[in-house]
């Protein structure tokens, strides 16, 4: 059994709004093994970024409420960490690459100055001299395949292109050895040829050092090319999780199937009708399955009860009543993912 870097169990996250509690993330289970690349795929507003921000505890405590669940990072519960432990987690444990490379860097400092700050406060190089810091920063820049590190260290963010800025963001999260890298749609703002290069680079960086990666994305194509295992998220629930190959060979949840049909193919073949409707209202979510109002195969039971998690083939879990009949015995157990690992 592989070592788990991250293990989320039965986690719910609620936002406080003027209309009441908005139940954005609802009882999700998820884990990441050491050295594994995991994809979290879902459309906007499904709670994927909220989940990841909670892992690093970067959401303001005043606006969220976590009614139940645990987030274990290397065996420690993140939700109960004190200030020092949290600092340690952010310095050495996990880091996040944000969606917009435009706003992740401070426009009034040079890239070099920003990298030095990160090196200084990482706690990894307590007695580093200026020359040593420059060396570390240069290494970080070359590791993300940017040539001419001297020039880049002297430039301000606005002097670099979007792709270069995103590379710098990745570099800055790699100056200290990390166990887990969370990439939150790192390439949505970038062109497809740049995206391809950054994905290749990310993969190499992660594989070479045995790090783990969580790739948040809305694109099934990106997930297919980059990760080992995929979680499909809809309306705050994880509806399907399995190995990448299994997902594309045998998509099982109606949402996954619908999502896959929606992707316009390079091989042509016309357009699908799409999935009718919108993500659920999180303040008053549907009582039963959250996908049920948009689901083509919805039955009476779907409206009333939450669907169980069913293992339809090894390591392939689906939360849907469609598969509940055959293997009902395994389905009721909470945290089934762990047992079958």
């Amino acid at each position, binding site marked *: 059994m592989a070592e788990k870097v991250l293990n989320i169990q039965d986690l719910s996250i609620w936002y406080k709004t*003027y209309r009441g509690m908005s139940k954005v993330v609802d009882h999700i289970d998820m884990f990441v093994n050491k050295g594994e690349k995991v994809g979290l795929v879902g459309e906007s507003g499904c709670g994927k970024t909220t989940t990841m921000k909670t892992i690093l505890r970067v959401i303001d405590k005043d*606006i969220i409420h976590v009614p139940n669940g645990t987030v274990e990072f290397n065996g420690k519960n993140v939700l109960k960490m004190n200030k020092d432990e949290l600092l340690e987690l952010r310095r050495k444990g996990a880091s996040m690459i944000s969606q917009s490379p435009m706003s992740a860097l401070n426009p009034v400092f040079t890239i070099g100055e920003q990298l030095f700050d990160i090196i200084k406060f990482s706690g990894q190089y307590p007695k580093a001299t200026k020359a040593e810091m420059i060396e570390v920063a240069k290494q970080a820049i070359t590791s993300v395949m940017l040539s001419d590190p001297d020039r880049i260290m002297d430039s301000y963010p606005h002097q670099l292109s979007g792709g270069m800025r995103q590379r710098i963001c990745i570099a800055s999260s790699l100056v200290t050895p990390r166990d887990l890298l969370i990439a939150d749609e790192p390439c949505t703002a970038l062109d497809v040829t740049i995206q391809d290069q950054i994905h290749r680079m990310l993969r190499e960086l992660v594989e070479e050092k045995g790090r783990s990666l969580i790739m948040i994305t809305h694109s099934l194509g990106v997930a297919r090319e980059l990760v080992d295992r995929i979680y499909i998220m809809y309306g705050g629930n994880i509806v399907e999780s399995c190995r990448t190959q299994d997902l594309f060979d045998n998509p099982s949840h109606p949402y996954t199937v619908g999502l896959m049909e929606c992707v316009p193919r390079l091989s042509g073949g016309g357009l699908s009708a799409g999935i009718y409707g919108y993500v659920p209202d999180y303040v008053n979510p549907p009582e039963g399955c959250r996908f049920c109002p948009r689901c083509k195969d919805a039955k009476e039971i779907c409206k009333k009860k939450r669907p169980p998690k069913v293992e339809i083939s090894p390591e392939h879990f689906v939360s849907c009543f469609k598969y509940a009949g055959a293997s009902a015995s395994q389905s009721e157990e909470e945290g089934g993912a762990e047992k079958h690992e």
Partner: protein
Amino acid sequence: MSGDVNMTAAKKKGLLSPSAKENLRIYWYKFTRNRLSVFGLILVCLSLLFAIFAKQIVPYPEHIGTFVDYANASQAPSGSYWFGTDQMGRDVFSRVIYCFRGALLMSVVVLAIAVPVGTLLGLIAGYYHGTKIDTVIMRITDVFLSVPALILALCIASILKPNMMNSMLAVTIMWWPWYTRLVYGQASSISGEYFVKNAELVGASKMHIMLKEILPNCLSPIFTKMALDVGWVILMGASLSFVGLGEQPPTPAFGQMISDGASYMPDMWWMTIFPAVGVAFMILGFNFLGDGIRDMFDKGGH
């Protein structure tokens, strides 16, 4: 489609109200999130009541005019004279309450002129961003902004006859450029938005684009600034009347009362302290209210 006409009319009533109600609820929620803004709202409401019903509230309405009662002069605050009396025996409480009236009138008049003028000029300059029209309007505005506000107002007020009317005029002249600046910035960024481009491409008139497309998007900062400005106009008016360029005696005004009382400090402290508290009361109220309105229009947050 003709059969739908009646249905449409019915829908108009049924559909508009729920969303308007919802909006009000959101605004109220955002406004009340900050306790201070509610406090501000209460102060402002009280100020309004004082101003409107001054005659009914005050115990000695006749003390506002040329009234002399040396028997009760220079009395400390007591049961019959809550804020004491001044050197001529006039009730300070009655006079302070009457000051609210003048102060509010001044801010209403000043803003009623300065805001539309400033907004219109800012709107034109912002829409014609980068052209000669923009340069002319904004440079004139800059000239006004470059002279310290109080000094400009003092100059204007002292050239003219010192009275309430002219002090309002002076404050108005120095107030509009702020709105031009504010609206200019907002309007020039809004005119780059695609809905404005679309209206241009469709061929809508300039009038329509400025008033119907751009202006509504500038309203929330204008309202916020207005609420904050009421306090500042009152302060400015008080400063002018402190140096004798505002409301002339015997009609009371905050600045004039403070300056009169200053010569009797510290023995007759009530003559200065209570009008000063009155000014602070209004300015605080409008400032907190302004903050609340800003939060209300703030799009972010939950």
